[in-house]
């Protein structure tokens, strides 16, 4: 009883967009897809939706192939967002809901509810082109959920949202989760993932490089992170000279270092005490997702690895 992606591969011309990708997403969980641009996230979602067919591999939801289940179980928020520019908001949301078999009256009522919740009830009768990008995105989210889908697939839902709108969308995520929906979304924003997701998968060049619960992923390297701040020494130069310790960040507030697997992070504290430092802060943590990500994929967004066919006029 889950969304099971079983060894799917997909090739576009010379480019291997997905290479033997397998994932298992539990019902009711929030799942994050991480990866650089062109890592294959969008292709994976399109294949789950059966908009694209994989070269090999299968997708199953609750034991049934995605080619056999009703399309109404999916709610989709595409990366290439699009609304009918000249059509008014209410009309097009009702239109999309009708295509999924929702009764027009119910669709209209729920649309107005959601517009209210997103604080844009006055936009119901505006044409989509009159809305700001962030507001269009909220409309797009409503379009994805009006037919009460079991699984929500959202491609970069937070891109381009200001903090207020991002918070509104996170609330909506929470509500969908409370309703028992399964949420899958892709993003570059690691904090959002750490905040919302139970499980993640990091894709790189069409392969899953690491996956699992956020907790397991963060522990997957075996390394731990210590954050140390002492009185009168903001650089803590001696930290790097310790065995199995590697400084990853120096700052005014604290210095961060990674401790190799097998090494006891407590030894850092002991070393500091032995040097007679007056300790302001000492913290042991798992590496952040960002660190994991950089480790597996390299610098975020430094290069665009275009795999899937992409638009020229994005």
């Amino acid at each position, binding site marked *: 009883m889950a969304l099971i992606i079983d060894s799917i591969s997909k090739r576009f011309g010379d480019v291997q967009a997905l290479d033997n990708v397998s994932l298992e997403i539990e019902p009711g969980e929030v799942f994050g897809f991480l990866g650089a641009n062109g890592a294959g996230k969008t292709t994976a979602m*399109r294949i789950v939706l*059966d908009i694209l067919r994989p070269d090999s591999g299968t997708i199953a939801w609750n034991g049934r192939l995605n080619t056999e289940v009703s399309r109404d179980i999916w709610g989709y928020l595409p990366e290439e967002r*699009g*609304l*009918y520019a000249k059509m008014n908001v209410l009309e097009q949301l009702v239109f999309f809901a009708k295509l999924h078999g929702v009764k027009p009256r119910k669709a209209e009522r729920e649309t107005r509810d959601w517009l209210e919740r997103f604080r844009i009830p006055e936009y119901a009768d505006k044409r989509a082109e009159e809305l700001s990008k962030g507001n269009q995105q909220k409309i797009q989210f409503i379009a994805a959920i009006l037919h009460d889908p079991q699984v929500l697939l959202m491609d970069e839902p937070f891109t381009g949202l200001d903090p207020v709108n991002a918070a509104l969308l996170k609330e909506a995520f929470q509500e969908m989760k409370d309703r028992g929906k399964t949420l899958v979304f892709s993003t570059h924003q690691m904090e959002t993932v750490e905040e919302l997701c139970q499980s993640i998968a990091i894709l790189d060049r069409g392969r899953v490089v690491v996956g699992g619960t956020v907790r397991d992923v963060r522990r997957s390297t075996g390394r731990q992170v210590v954050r140390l701040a002492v009185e009168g020494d903001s650089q803590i130069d001696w930290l790097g000279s310790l065995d199995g310790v590697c400084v990853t960040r120096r700052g005014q507030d604290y210095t961060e270092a990674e401790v190799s697997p097998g090494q006891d992070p407590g030894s850092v504290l002991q070393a500091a005490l032995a040097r007679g430092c007056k300790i302001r802060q000492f913290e042991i943590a798992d590496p952040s997702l960002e660190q994991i990500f950089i480790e597996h994929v390299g610098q975020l967004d430094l290069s665009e690895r275009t795999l899937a066919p992409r638009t020229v006029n994005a």
Partner: protein
Amino acid sequence: MNGWRTLFPNAWYITVREFRSRARSRSFIAGTVILAAIAFAATQVPVLIDFAMGASQTHLEVVVRAAGTPADLQVELTGTLNGQNATSDHQPFVVSWLAGGDLAAAQQALEQGKFDALLIVDRDPASQNLAFTLRTDLAADGQVVSTIDNAATLLALDDGLARAGTSIGAVEATAFTVVPVNASSGPANSTSQEVSTNLLSTGLIVLIFMAIITYGTWVAMSVAEEKGSRVMELMLNATTPLQMLAGKVIGNGAAGLTQYGIILAAVVGGLLAQGPIHQAVLGGASSGGPFGGLDPIVLVAFAVLFVLGFLFYSLLYAALGSLVSRQEDVQSATSPLMMLIFVGYFMSIFGLQSMDDTWVKVASFVPFFSPYLMLARVAMGHVALWEFALAVVFLLVGIAAALVAAARIYSAGVLLYGQRVGLRQVLKAARVSR
């Protein structure tokens, strides 16, 4: 392709949306109004020409004071006056006869404007020749006066000959022998009949041609627009390509036909109004009935071929439209289709000269060309019922094939964003996608 079973209701929702968004757009409304106005105005051109040419009727009153004029003088005069304009049904002159010759009363009526001109027929006492006096405000060197002058001269000559004991007919008979120039030609009127049918066929072909080009492009535009605005992915999750294809083609087609219907209605209304307007503006009957040459069978054939041809080409337009993601690229993507349409169009225009050639007959069964060529053949009356039926069957088969092909190209093309796609890529994509 499990879309076949579940075409409705989604195809219907999409049809309605497409129709509405098209019909509500400013360009549609403005275009329809302007084109209908132009079409209506165009139908009034003949009235305008008549008006400009001054082809109003001249009411001529004749007072005969001469003794011994021919008994059928009125008939002869009227015939001579109007006969010079035999090519049209238009009667430029209305001749009335003032028996008894109350000249004073006639003069008064002329001054009151009851008629345009007063012709007084006297006999010159010396020469005994007929003498004519024309009283009128019409320009002395105008066409009307000169026509009356010619008719009067002819009458005088006739009268003179009669008094000399002979007639114009007799003189002609002795002086001329009329030899037909082209002895082998058929009845004189068949050539003109052929020409008018030719004109009618050309008109109907142009109507189909224009509709396919204009509204087919609409369909392609609407498909490309959807990709351009990225609604496509949302639609792909909600519907099947077949539902979308059907909705796009029927919705845009219906909007196009609505515009076309309104314009045609303006034309028909204009033609029907020609008579009354002519009456009101020029005070006389218009020349000829507007629908004289239209055979109901041709109209039925036109309707059938129009709808089917339009459907066939619209499907192809939709398929090609799905290959591009920007409206600017639609023109180049659909140019091969445009060529094909032009080929069919020119074939049928040239084919009108040689309707019974084998190539015309063969081509008139090919779905790409049958909307024009079969229509031309029907209009020219060169076709048996079974031939027409066969062409329609072929066209229906063509539509089914176009539907399947278009649905495949469409479902493959819709996801190939951002690139100008070659046919080979599409065929490859069509194999792997739904």
